[in-house]
C-alpha cells in the first residue's frame, strides 16, 4: 500500500501519494502551475523552469514537475516573486530566438503565446538577440524552424520514449543549443525517423510543423494525454 503524504500548496491542505510530483498533486487539486517542457505521458526534464515553486525551509526554488511531495511540505506556487520569475523566463524564451507570431503557423494556438498571455507579458524589456537561425524543410512531410524553438525538448523525449526512434537530440551549448536529427544530418536524410509526426504533435510552438501549412493554420492540439499521438500518421495513411 502506497503512503499518502499530506501537505499544503498555496495554503490549501492537499494529499498526494508517495512518488507524486508537486505539479501532479497541485493539478489534481485545481491549482494551476504554469509549465512548458512538462508533458503528461513523457518523462520530465526540468528544462524550462517555469514551474518553479517555493518550499518552506529551503532557500532554493524547486521545479514542481521534478520535485516529489513529502509529508508536511509547505509549498508556495503563486507569489509576486514567482510571477516575476515566470514572466522573466517567458520573456527570455521570446527574445532568445525570432518569434513573429503574425506570420507563424502556430499563431493563435501556440502554448508560448498562451503562456505570455496568462502571465500578462505584454512587452519585452530585454533586448532581442535576433540570432540568425535556420529552417530545415528537407523532410517530405515536416519542417523545423529553429527560430521558434524554445528547447523544451518534448520532441526529443517523445521520439525516444514513445516512438523509440531517438531521431532527435541536442547539440551545442548555451545560445547555440539546437535540437538536431541524427547527429546533425538533415531531417530528410535521417535513417531513423519513422515520419510518425509525434514530435510535430508535441511541439508547443510553431517550431515543428507540417509542411504546406499556411500561417495560423497549424493543427490545434489539445493535449490531455497522448491519444492524439497517432493522428498525423493516420491522417496521412502512414
Amino acid at each position: 500500500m502506497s503512503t499518502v503524504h499530506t501537505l499544503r500548496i498555496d495554503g490549501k491542505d492537499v494529499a498526494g501519494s508517495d512518488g507524486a510530483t508537486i505539479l501532479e498533486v497541485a493539478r489534481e487539486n485545481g491549482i494551476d502551475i504554469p509549465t512548458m517542457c512538462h508533458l503528461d505521458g513523457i518523462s520530465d526534464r526540468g528544462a524550462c523552469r517555469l514551474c518553479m515553486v517555493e518550499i518552506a525551509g529551503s532557500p532554493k526554488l524547486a521545479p514542481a514537475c521534478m520535485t516529489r511531495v513529502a509529508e508536511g511540505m509547505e509549498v508556495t506556487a503563486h507569489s509576486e516573486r514567482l510571477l516575476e520569475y515566470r514572466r522573466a523566463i517567458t520573456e527570455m524564451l521570446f527574445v532568445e530566438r525570432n518569434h513573429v507570431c503574425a506570420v507563424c503557423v502556430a499563431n493563435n494556438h501556440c502554448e508560448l503565446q498562451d503562456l505570455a498571455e496568462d502571465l500578462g507579458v505584454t512587452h519585452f524589456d530585454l533586448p532581442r538577440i535576433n540570432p540568425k537561425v535556420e529552417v530545415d524543410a528537407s523532410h517530405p512531410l515536416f519542417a523545423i524552424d529553429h527560430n521558434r524553438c524554445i528547447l523544451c525538448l518534448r520532441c526529443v523525449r517523445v521520439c525516444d520514449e514513445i516512438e523509440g526512434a531517438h531521431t532527435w537530440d541536442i547539440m551545442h551549448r548555451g545560445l547555440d543549443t539546437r535540437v538536431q536529427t541524427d547527429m546533425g544530418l538533415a531531417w530528410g536524410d535521417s535513417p531513423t525517423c519513422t515520419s510518425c509526426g509525434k514530435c510535430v504533435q508535441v511541439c508547443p510552438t510553431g517550431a515543428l510543423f507540417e509542411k504546406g501549412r499556411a500561417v495560423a493554420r497549424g493543427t490545434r492540439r489539445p493535449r490531455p494525454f497522448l491519444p492524439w499521438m497517432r493522428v498525423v500518421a493516420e491522417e496521412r495513411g502512414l
Partner: protein
Amino acid sequence: MTRTIVIDPVTRIEGHSKITIQLDDRGEVVDAHFHVTQFRGFERITQGRPVHEMPAITARTCGICPVSHMVAAAKAVDDIMAVEAAPTGADLRRVINLAQVVQSHALSFFHLSSPDLLFGFDADPARRNIIGVARENPGLARDGIAIRKLGQQIIEWLGGKRIHPPWIVPGGVAEPLAEETRDRILAAIPEAIAAAQRAIAWYKSDLVRWEEEAATFGNFRTAYMGLVDREGLVDLYDGWLRVIDADGKPLEERVDPRRYAEFIGEAVEPWTYLKTPYWKPMGYPDGIYRVGPLARLNVAERTGTPLADEELEKFRWRIGRVAGSSFHYHYARLIEILHGLERIDQLLRGPDILSKHVRSRAEVNRHEGIGVSEAPRGTLFHHYRVDDHGIVEWANLIIATGNNNMAMNRAVLQVARQHVRGDRLEEPMLNRVEAVIRCYDPCLSCSTHALGQMALELELRAPDGTTLDTLTR
C-alpha cells in the same frame, strides 16, 4: 542656376514620401520627383522562409492592401506547386479580391477625394474632409461609408479577420463558403449597387466643373496595362496582360503574365526606394505606362457586368476611348466599384460556390513561381524562387503603386508647371500636388493620412540647400 521646391511630410511616422520640384533660374519648373523614402524590403525579409508563409508575410509587409498580396502570393505558390487552385477556391479568392477593390476604391473616392471634388481644391482644409462632406452632402457620405463597410464586411465574413485573413492559402482557400454567409452578402449587394449608382450620377453631374482642371491634371500620353480575360474583359484576378499605347493601339494583345520579365524592366533611381518599372520594348524612360482603375478600363473591351458596362459606355462617350487625364481615375474607380459589386453577386450565384472542395494540395513541384493579379491600385506581380524543400531563395515583387511610379512623377511635374509661379509657394499648388498624387491612390501611408489630409511640407530650396520658403500643413 536651379532651385528646388521640396514637399515633405510633416509626420515622419505616417509619411513615407517627399516631393521635390526643380526650378531653373527663371523660376520655371524643370523637373519633379516623388520620393519614396521609406520602403520595406520584403525581397530580403522573405529569404529563407518556407514558401507557404509568403501570403501572410507579404500581406504584413505591405499592409495597405493585404488581401491583394495574399491573392498574388497564393497564386505564385500555386505555380510553385504546379497546381491550379480548386475552381471554387479560385472563385472565392475572386470574391475577396473584389471586396478589397470595392472597399479600397470607396476609401479613396469618398473619404479621400470627394472632399476636393465637393468643395474645390482651394477650399479650407478644415472643411475639406469626409466630415465636411457629411455636412454638405450627407447622402454622398453615407453611400461612401456604406459601400466601404460592405467591402470590409465581406472580407471579414470570408476571411475571418478584416486585415490579415489567413483564409487565402496556396491551392485555394482554407474553408468553404457557408450558405448563410453567401446569403448575407447577396442580401446586402443591391443596396450597395444603388449607392454606387447614386455616387456615379453625382460625379457625372459634377464633372463639367472640372473639365478645365482635368486637362492639365496629370494628362499625358502613356501606355496602359491591365489583366483581361479570354474575351478582353476586365479580370481582376487572373488572365492575360494587355498593354495598349496612348492611342489605344495594342502593344501586346495578350501576354501570359508569367512572362512579365521579358516586357517589364525595373529601373532604379537614386531619389526613390520604389523601383521604377517601364515597358521594356519602348526603353527607359519612354516606356512609361499606367496601371490601376483607369488603365484597366482603357485596356479592356468592357467590364463584363451590365450596369458597369452601361456606365463605361457613357464614360467613353464623354472622355474618349482612352482616357489620358489622371483626373479620371476617380470616375474609373466608381465604375469599378459598381463592377466589383455586380461581379461578386454573379460569382456568389455560381452553382458550385458552396462546394466543399476549395483547396488543391500538392508539394513543391517547381523551383519558380509567378502570381499576378489586379490590386485596387493596379497590376501586382509576385515572383519567387525556392529550393528543393520550398524555402524561398529569391523573391521579386512589383507592387501596383510601383508601376505608376513614373506616371506619378510626370503628373506632379505637370501640375507644378501649371501652378508654380515664381519662387513663392502657394497653397493652391500644394493642394493640387496632393490631389494629383491622390488620383493614383498610392499605397503609402501618407496618402491615407487622417481624414484624407496628406501631411505635406512644401519647401523651396536654392541649389546650395538653403531654404527660400516653406509651406506646411
